[in-house]
């Protein structure tokens, strides 16, 4: 299924690209898209694994752009 998340304080376009890349590689994620312009992240993934995936996504976000927050 598809879920859309808001991103707060996403200030760096390069980081958005890096995040997109890293989140796409999480196990169970079919595809991920981080839009710098709309400050939104779209993730397609299995329903059951979603919580686990989001935990990892938050970690990745913290690592790449510590100021940016995923609004869950």
């Amino acid at each position, binding site marked *: 299924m598809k879920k859309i998340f808001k991103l707060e304080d996403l*200030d*760096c*376009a*390069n980081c958005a*690209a890096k995040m997109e*890349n890293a989140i796409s590689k999480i196990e169970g994620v079919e595809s991920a*898209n981080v*839009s*710098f*312009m*709309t*400050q*939104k992240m*779209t993730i397609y993934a299995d329903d059951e694994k979603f919580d686990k995936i989001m935990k990892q996504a938050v970690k990745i976000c913290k*690592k*790449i752009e*510590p*100021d940016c927050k995923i609004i869950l």
Partner: protein
Amino acid sequence: MSVKQKKMLIRIIISFVLLIATVLIPIENKYLQLIAALIPFIIIGYDILLKSARNILHGQIFDENFLMSIATIGSFVLGYSSGSGEYEEGIAVMLFYQVGEFFQNYAVGSSRKSIASLMDIRPDFANIEKNGEIISVDPDDVAIGSITVIKPGERIPLDGIIESGSSSIDTSALTGESMPKDAAVGDSVISGCINLNGLLKVRTTKEYGESTVSKILDLVENSSSKKSKAENFITKFAKYYTPCVVFAALALALIPSFITGNWTEWINRSLIFLVISCPCALVISVPLSFFGGIGGASKSGILVKGGNYLEILSKAETVVFDKTGTLTKGVFKVTAVHPEKISESQLLEYAAIAESFSNHPIAQSIREKYGADTDNSLIQNYEEIAGRGIKCTINDKLICIGNDKLMNDINADWHQCHHIGTSVHIAIDNIYAGHIIISDEIKPDSQQTIKSLKKNGIKKTVMLTGDSERIGKNIAEKLNIDEAYCGLLPGDKVDIVEKLLNETSEKGKLLFVGDGINDAPVISRADIGIAMGAGSDAAIEAADIVLMDDKPSKISDAINISKRTLKIVYQNIIFALAVKIVILILGSLGFANMWAAVFADVGVSVIAILNAMRCMKINNKN
């Protein structure tokens, strides 16, 4: 300006004043000099330094903050170790960088805002009548079949059909059309439009999530996930660019220094490389341009589903049109009634009664011309003959109404009409009684569209139609279309499009424009499928580009927008890369200083963003 931006502005001003002070007030002591220089440096750069420390702990070395920190700290170290006490450059570079970031931030923020305002068509509430009272609720909570009350000046929250009232409706937010549309009881209205003057009660036909407005918003917001080749190139480029430049900087710092022994000079030159190593200008401006182009297009009623489609559109070479509903109005009208041996009104009456069970557009147009209600109880022995017409008995007379084949079957002595259009022949008791000519009108802007497409470099225009050769060729000639294929069945259209696809040059692309209802296979086969006319879900789903109103002139507008967007994208890519490469070369040769490097980084970003924002402005000259 946000709180964050205000804070930044204050920091910029304070450190700028302190920087000037350190230059003007001479300090003799070496240590005091360093401390005096560190104060403005830390004020302006503390967040960058903190971030870079944090990012190293996270293993992110090729990060902008880290590189800026090394570059400026490096310049401090050089100033101290050489004993010159020149720290201004380090402070100034950090200051200049932050000013650039500040502008960049501001520009991104305002372009985000203006894109958001382009899409400001979301209805905030819906008025629902409940127990005689009108209450406002979230459009999401309105069920299908509810009655919504829309006051003058309010936005229509959900798609529906007018139950009572009449009004003018401003559809400009969706279609770009400035002329309001009149709507009365029985008309269907789409969400996102504004009710201008009358009070309307609308019975909703869709849930909010399925309504036109949410479909459009969804489509535009998701358009950034379909990336163009240019965007993919930039993402790939960014991945390799930073490490390459950083390693080049390392090499520049070490190799010549070992050979010449002049460490200060070469480390200084390598620091310039570090400052230029962020590909920000490209990473921000290219997607921003596409997003702006898509946003601007949607403002004029052209919905583009992704940057990739905008890119393909700009390379259009062949445009294939479906005739009915695209170049012509698709509304059939009786243009001539030619009776033989009976009166005109009698012929029309027989035709209207005989056709009263049919929903075919031709039947509808005959009934419309007849005007009065038809008494279908008069019909007996009704029989529809596929591909021929209708046979029935009215007032004990055998009526045959249909095409020439039907007339041949019953041996009626029919003849061709000199009018161009679809002929409906009628025979009474197998004796020819005359014909009715029905034709479709060409849209007022069709001719202009073909002309401006040619002017904008479209090499070939093609028209496909299921109509007869005679009608099709006539319209193609009037509109100056290069090729016309007539008498096609839906399957034939796909074959012809495939043939045309083979004929286009390697880089040239083929567009297909249809009304989206039964063209779905062709729309998906073409390089770009354009569907006309909103409201049809099939159209929105199947096509790559959706035109919200049914004006063919929007096709040339869309091509213009795509060309403009791509031009701006390439301008930015070339400009940003050229400046960076030039400064890298000059820097390695010792002709460019740190200032130039910061300009090549943030200065170029700001310019590229400002350039990209031009994509949003659409001038409708055509």
